[in-house]
């Protein structure tokens, strides 16, 4: 049994005179003890609503939430044993940073020395130990965010909810804190869910990532799996930097397999053996499918696909080469530099085993082979 279980959660916002907003739709999700989960999605996808329902500031329209086997969706926030860091920091203005953090420990009835020991430890971790006696109004946004984070992490709670915990921090500090927070969470086996729209942050901090869009959970998996085995077109086009190349291809039966093509140069033979029954059924029935190829899986320099280069960028450790082929934009990522200029024609190599094929409803019917 999971630490946190959300069962068919629905959230509908109704306001008079306006159409109801269905923010979260039949969300099922189970988080294990000690696991760090990221809710990733664009703004308005329902990730913050989900977090706030777990914290208890939004009611659940339908469904249930259980934390450590206790049903919590009817409990007031105070009794859920949940700690949260808010996106807007929400520090108490009349209290110093130290008091703000210590405040979270008040209900735990610890000795004064224990409180100050804990406050100082967490303050050192997020590098705010030099501003403990300052008031929130005089410290920067990034510092306020770290205070808010410290105030959540200092508590003993069953679950830690972090809403965009590092959005305001400088990149360098962000990288350092990510590492420290991750090891703190791991060391104390804390279960945490954080909301972010930053894929790098999600991959760096989370064990598993929930990708949400339009209030619907698209996929809940590790970063590697999201990249290699996207559940649908949305995940394929959302995850990865740059995201997967998507091309619409014509489907033709060819012996026991299928031939996918997007123009004379771009054709692939997919053998029927690697496909399951359902995938074969879909491919036999539809005239066209969406096909996805990870940019990292494309070879550059030789191959059957002729691409007219649009841009060739060296990013210091990899090249992003974008070009046009059969009316589609293809991006390849390779670890070395090549001497291609815009307008040149370069050959790209795409192996049929690296194709992800998506059915007409957007669901992935065949994943690319990993390796």
């Amino acid at each position, binding site marked *: 049994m999971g630490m946190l279980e959300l069962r068919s959660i629905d959230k509908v916002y109704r306001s008079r005179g306006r159409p109801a907003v269905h923010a979260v739709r039949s969300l099922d999700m189970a988080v294990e003890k000690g696991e760090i989960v990221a809710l990733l999605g664009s703004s308005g996808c329902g990730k913050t609503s989900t977090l706030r329902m777990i914290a208890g500031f939004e009611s659940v329209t339908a469904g249930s939430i259980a934390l450590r086997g206790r049903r919590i969706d009817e409990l007031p*926030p105070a009794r859920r044993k949940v700690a949260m860091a*808010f996106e807007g920091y929400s520090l108490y203005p009349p209290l110093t940073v130290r008091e703000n953090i210590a405040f979270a420990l008040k209900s735990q009835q610890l000795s004064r020395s224990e409180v100050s020991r804990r406050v100082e430890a967490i303050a050192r971790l997020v590098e705010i130990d030099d501003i403990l006696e300052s008031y929130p109004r005089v410290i920067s*946004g990034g510092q306020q965010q770290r205070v808010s984070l410290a105030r959540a992490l200092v508590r003993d709670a069953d679950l830690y909810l972090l809403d965009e915990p590092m959005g305001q921090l400088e990149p360098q500090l962000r990288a350092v804190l990510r590492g420290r927070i991750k090891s703190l969470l791991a060391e104390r086996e804390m279960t945490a869910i954080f909301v972010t729209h930053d894929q790098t942050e999600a991959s760096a901090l989370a064990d598993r990532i929930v990708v949400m869009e339009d209030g619907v959970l698209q996929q809940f998996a590790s970063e590697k799996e999201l990249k290699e085995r996207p559940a649908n077109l949305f995940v394929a086009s959302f995850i990865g930097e740059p995201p997967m190349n998507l091309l619409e291809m014509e489907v033709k039966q060819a012996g026991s397999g299928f031939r996918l093509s997007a123009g004379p140069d771009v054709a692939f033979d997919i053998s029927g053996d690697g496909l399951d029954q359902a995938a074969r059924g879909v491919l036999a029935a539809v005239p066209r499918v969406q096909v996805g190829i990870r940019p990292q899986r494309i070879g550059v320099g030789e191959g059957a696909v002729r691409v007219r280069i649009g841009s060739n960028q060296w990013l210091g450790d990899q090249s992003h080469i974008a070009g046009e082929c059969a009316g589609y934009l293809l991006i390849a990522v390779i670890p070395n530099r090549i001497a291609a200029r815009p307008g040149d024609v370069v050959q790209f190599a795409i192996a049929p085993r690296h194709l992800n094929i998506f059915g007409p409803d957007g669901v992935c019917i065949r994943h690319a082979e990993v390796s």
Partner: protein
Amino acid sequence: MEHESLAGRIFRGAALTLILVFFMFPIVWILLMSFQTNEQILRIPPRILFEPTLANYEALISGQLRTAAGNLEITFMRNLWNSFVLSSGAVVLALLLGVPAAYAFARFKFRLGETIAFTLLSFRFAPPLLVLLPLSLYYQELGLNDTYVGIVWVYQLIALPLILWIVRGYFEDISPDIEHAYRLAGHSWSEAFTRIAVPLAGPGIAAAGLLSFIFCWNNFIFALILASADKQPVTVGALAFVTASGIQYGQIAAAIVLSVTPTLLLALYAQRYLVEGLSLGAVKG
């Protein structure tokens, strides 16, 4: 502003002076009048230089007014006390009712919420005379006529909407997440209200309270109709100086000075709170 031309600065200074003189002159004149006898006041042409007298203030404080028609008892100090009791009573009641209501309107969206809030505000739009006649009739029926309770109650028409709408704005300015954070730390919403929301809106509540105190203090018509002599505030009490033997301008002026002073001090004090209250927004994340 820094590169304003000399002419511009002179013009601005002149305009400010003009406005200041226009609005401040009557107050200065009243102050001067309060130190003159009726004869000195009614002199034509009036003089700026005169021999000041404290007779007006003495008469007010002792309660004995000597006129040509004989000695007249005046109850000015009693009126001043009434003003104080009625206004502070009204403000305390309005704060007790208005602050929780303002919080509810700011935090919760409920059916007819906006309508109720607007209806309460609309009490300020209606001319008091509109409601006074029916009000005085059923105040007589209820036995509330000429009681402190009755007047404090009717003053809610003045104080409650003011407090409700000002304080509501302050509550809306406080991020609800500050209360949420407090509640997650193991506190109920009522604790979040009393320990977080009210203290944070403190300057706003103080400003609204002081402002409505001034409005209640300055009210005339409600007390004129609903209160008899011993419950009347200064605004109505000043009518006593229109006597059979003439209008006692000197005493009126002194009475005005005495009754304006507390509200003027309050206004100066509230100004500080208003500024402090308005800067609360800067604290938000």
